[in-house]
C-alpha cells in the first residue's frame, strides 16, 4: 500500500496528505501518518469550525483565560477565579452509554484540575430519543448511571443539568458534561512545554490499547462498518482519577511545575504537540519509557492511545524525583519519558532509536482549514406558522395535565437523585431550581451555574435559537441573584459537510455571539461535536451554554418556590 492509500484509510484527505508532504518534505511513515490522522481529525483540530468560532466574543476585563487552554478561567474577585468547560462524549455514549458517559465526565474533570483548579461542581446536558423505545431507555439509564457513578465516586457534587427527549436523538444521543472549579489567581497553570532541557513526564494510569483512534471515531458518523468501534472501549476508573486529582493539586503548589495538560483524546500525541506548540518549543520522547498495560504495544499505539486518567506534566529539570514522591503518596506512577527541545520538533524514539519526527506545531495547528459551504435549509420556510391560527381547546386543564405528563416537562428528580448534590458542603441551591448556587468557603461570595440548550428553537431558527439559549442561561443566573460573568459552549451538530448543517452551525454561533456581546458575557471555553448522525436521522442543531455568575453575598440568593401566602406575584417583561 502506498503512503497515500494508507493516509486515506486513516481518514486523511488527499489535500491533507499533500500538506503533510509539504510540511515534511518527504513521505511520512505509518507512525507519522497516524499522528496526523488523529490530530487533524475534526475532534482535535476543529478544522471545520475554527473560522466560525473566531466570531465569539472572548474578551473582557473579567477573563483570565479564554479559549485555547484546557479550560477557561474567569475572575470572581478577592483573588479568586472560576475555571469551567463543557465537553461532549456523544459517540462513545452511543456505543457504551455507561462507560461513554463516565469517561466523558472524567475527561471534563481533568480539564479543570489540570489548570490547578479544584473541581467544585458538575453539570450535564443530555439528549435522548423517545423513552418509549427500549434501546433509548437503556441508553438513558446507563448514561445517567455512568455520569453519576463517576462524579459521585470523585466526591464532586452534580448541581445541575438538563435532559430532553426527542426522536432526532434516537440514534445519536448527546451526552455533554460540564465542570466548574475554583482557583486562586496566582495558582493558574497552563499547558506549556517551555524551557529547553525540562523534563516531560506522564503521570497516572498505565497506557493500554483502549479507545484507539477514538478521536477520529468521534469525527465520523455512527455506522456499523466503522472499524474503530471494534477497538477496546475506554473504561473509567474514578478511583484512580480521584487520586490523580489530589496528586496534581498537590503537585501544582510547586513553582517548579512548568506546564500540565490532560491526556484526553489522542493522549500522548495531542498533549505533547499542543504543549510544545503553545510554548514554541519541541519535545523529544521515548515511547518505550511509558508504562504500558498491554503487551507488545507499537509506537503509534502508545502515541494515540486514549487510556483514561493520565496527564502530561512538564517540570524543571532535576525535579523528577519530587514529582515521583508526590505521586507515590497517591499510589500513582510518574515517569519521565521526554525532554523539551528548542527545534520545534516532536521527535519520537523507541528505545533510543528515532522512529518518527514531525514539527509539533504542524500537528497542533497545521491542519488545512476546510471552507464549508453553508445553505439555508428549505424546511425552515415550511415551518413558519401563524401562531394566531392555532386552535385553542376548551379544556385547558387537560392540556395542562398532558404537558405535565411529558417527560420533557416533568420533574427530572429521577435523574438528579442519582447524583450526589451536596458533597463538599457548598451546595446552597441544589438541582431543581433555575440555577444552582454554590458558596465559596472562606468568603461571603457564591457562584451560580446553569447549563441550557434548546434543540427545537435552534432547529426552527438557528440564529434566534442561539440567541435564546444565552438569554435563558443569563435569566436563570439573574433569577438566582447572580451577575453573569462568562459562558462555555458545547456545539452539537450533524455532519458539517452538509451545507444545511453548516448553516445551522454558523447561525447558532452568530446568535450566541450576538447576545453574549450585548450582555457582556464572553465565551471562555467550549467544545464542538459534529457528525451526530445515524443511518436515518441527524440530531437537531443542539448548542448548549454553560454559564457562571457571581453573588457578592451568597445569603442574598433567591429560590423559585412561593414563600408565603399573600405575597405579590408580578409578571416582568413583555
Amino acid at each position: 500500500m502506498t503512503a497515500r492509500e494508507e493516509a486515506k484509510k486513516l481518514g486523511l484527505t488527499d489535500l491533507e496528505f499533500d500538506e503533510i508532504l509539504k510540511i515534511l518534505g518527504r513521505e511520512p511513515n505509518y507512525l507519522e501518518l497516524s499522528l496526523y490522522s488523529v490530530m487533524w481529525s475534526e475532534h482535535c483540530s476543529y478544522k471545520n469550525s475554527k473560522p466560525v468560532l473566531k466570531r465569539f466574543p472572548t474578551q473582557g476585563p473579567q477573563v483570565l483565560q479564554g479559549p485555547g487552554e484546557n479550560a477557561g478561567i474567569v475572575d470572581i474577585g478577592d483573588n479568586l477565579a472560576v475555571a469551567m468547560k463543557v465537553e461532549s462524549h456523544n459517540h462513545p455514549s452511543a456505543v457504551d452509554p455507561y462507560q461513554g458517559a463516565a469517561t466523558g465526565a472524567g475527561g471534563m474533570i481533568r480539564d479543570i484540575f489540570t489548570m490547578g483548579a479544584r473541581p467544585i461542581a458538575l453539570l450535564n446536558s443530555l439528549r435522548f430519543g423517545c423513552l418509549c423505545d427500549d434501546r433509548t431507555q437503556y441508553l438513558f439509564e446507563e448514561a445517567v448511571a455512568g455520569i453519576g457513578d463517576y462524579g459521585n465516586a470523585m466526591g464532586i457534587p452534580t448541581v445541575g443539568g438538563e435532559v430532553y427527549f426527542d426522536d432526532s436523538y434516537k440514534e445519536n444521543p448527546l451526552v455533554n458534561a460540564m465542570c466548574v472549579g475554583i482557583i486562586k489567581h496566582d495558582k493558574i497553570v497552563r499547558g506549556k512545554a517551555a524551557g529547553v532541557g525540562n523534563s516531560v513526564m506522564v503521570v497516572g494510569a498505565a497506557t493500554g490499547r483502549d479507545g484507539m483512534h477514538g478521536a477520529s471515531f468521534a469525527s465520523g458518523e455512527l455506522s456499523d462498518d466503522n472499524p474503530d468501534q471494534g477497538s477496546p472501549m475506554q473504561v473509567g476508573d474514578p478511583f484512580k482519577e480521584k487520586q490523580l486529582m489530589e496528586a496534581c493539586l498537590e503537585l501544582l503548589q510547586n513553582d517548579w511545575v512548568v506546564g500540565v495538560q490532560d491526556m484526553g483524546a489522542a493522549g500522548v500525541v495531542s498533549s505533547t504537540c499542543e504543549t510544545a506548540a503553545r510554548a514554541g518549543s519541541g519535545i523529544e520522547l521515548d515511547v518505550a519509557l511509558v508504562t504500558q498495560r498491554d503487551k507488545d504495544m507499537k509506537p503509534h499505539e502508545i502515541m494515540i492511545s486514549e487510556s483514561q486518567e493520565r496527564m502530561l506534566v512538564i517540570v524543571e529539570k532535576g525535579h523528577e524525583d519530587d514529582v515521583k514522591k508526590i505521586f507515590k503518596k497517591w499510589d500513582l506512577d510518574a515517569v519521565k519519558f521526554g525532554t523539551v527541545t528548542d527545534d520545534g520538533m516532536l521527535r519520537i524514539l523507541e528505545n533510543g532509536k528515532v522512529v518518527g519526527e514531525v514539527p509539533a506545531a504542524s500537528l497542533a495547528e497545521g491542519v488545512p482549514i476546510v471552507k464549508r459551504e453553508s445553505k439555508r435549509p428549505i424546511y425552515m420556510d415550511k415551518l413558519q406558522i401563524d401562531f394566531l391560527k392555532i386552535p385553542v381547546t376548551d379544556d385547558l386543564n387537560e392540556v395542562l395535565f398532558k404537558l405535565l405528563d411529558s417527560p420533557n416537562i416533568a420533574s427530572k428528580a429521577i435523574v438528579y437523585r442519582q447524583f450526589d448534590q451536596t458533597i463538599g458542603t457548598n451546595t446552597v441551591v441544589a438541582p431543581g431550581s433555575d440555577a444552582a448556587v454554590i458558596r465559596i468557603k472562606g468568603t461571603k461570595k457564591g457562584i451560580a451555574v446553569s447549563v441550557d440548550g434548546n434543540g427545537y428553537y435552534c432547529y426552527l431558527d438557528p440564529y434566534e435559537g442561539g440567541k435564546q439559549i444565552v438569554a435563558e442561561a443569563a435569566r436563570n443566573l439573574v433569577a438566582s441573584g447572580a451577575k453573569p460573568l462568562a459562558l462555555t459552549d458545547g456545539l452539537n451538530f450533524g455532519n458539517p459537510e452538509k451545507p444545511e448543517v453548516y448553516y445551522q452551525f454558523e447561525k447558532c454561533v452568530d446568535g450566541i455571539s450576538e447576545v453574549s456581546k450585548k450582555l457582556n458575557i464572553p465565551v471562555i471555553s467550549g467544545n464542538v461535536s459534529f457528525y451526530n448522525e445515524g443511518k436515518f436521522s441527524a440530531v437537531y442543531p443542539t448548542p448548549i451554554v454553560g454559564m457562571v455568575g457571581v453573588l457578592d453575598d451568597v445569603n442574598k440568593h433567591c429560590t423559585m418556590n412561593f414563600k408565603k401566602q399573600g405575597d405579590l406575584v408580578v409578571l416582568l417583561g413583555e
Partner: protein
Amino acid sequence: MFLARVFTFPRTGVLDPQGSAIKATVSNIGFKDIQDIQTGKYYEVRINACDVAKAKEIMKELCEKVLVNPVVEDYKFEIMEV
C-alpha cells in the same frame, strides 16, 4: 430443569479498575504470591427446557441480550441438569 453458571470478565485490553485496586490492596496487606486479580460477574440461572440444546440456546440469547455488555465483557457458561 437446567442450571446455567455464567461468568463474565473484561474483554482483552479492556481496563479492569476493580481488579487492579483489589490487587494493590492485597499486595499491601502481605499477599505476596498473588500475581494478578481479574474481576467479573457470576450468575446462576435456572431454566425450564426440554433438553440441553434448548437450554443452551436460551442462555446464549439471555447472555447476549441482557447479562453481558459485549462492548467491554466476554463471557462463558456451563449448563447442567438439576
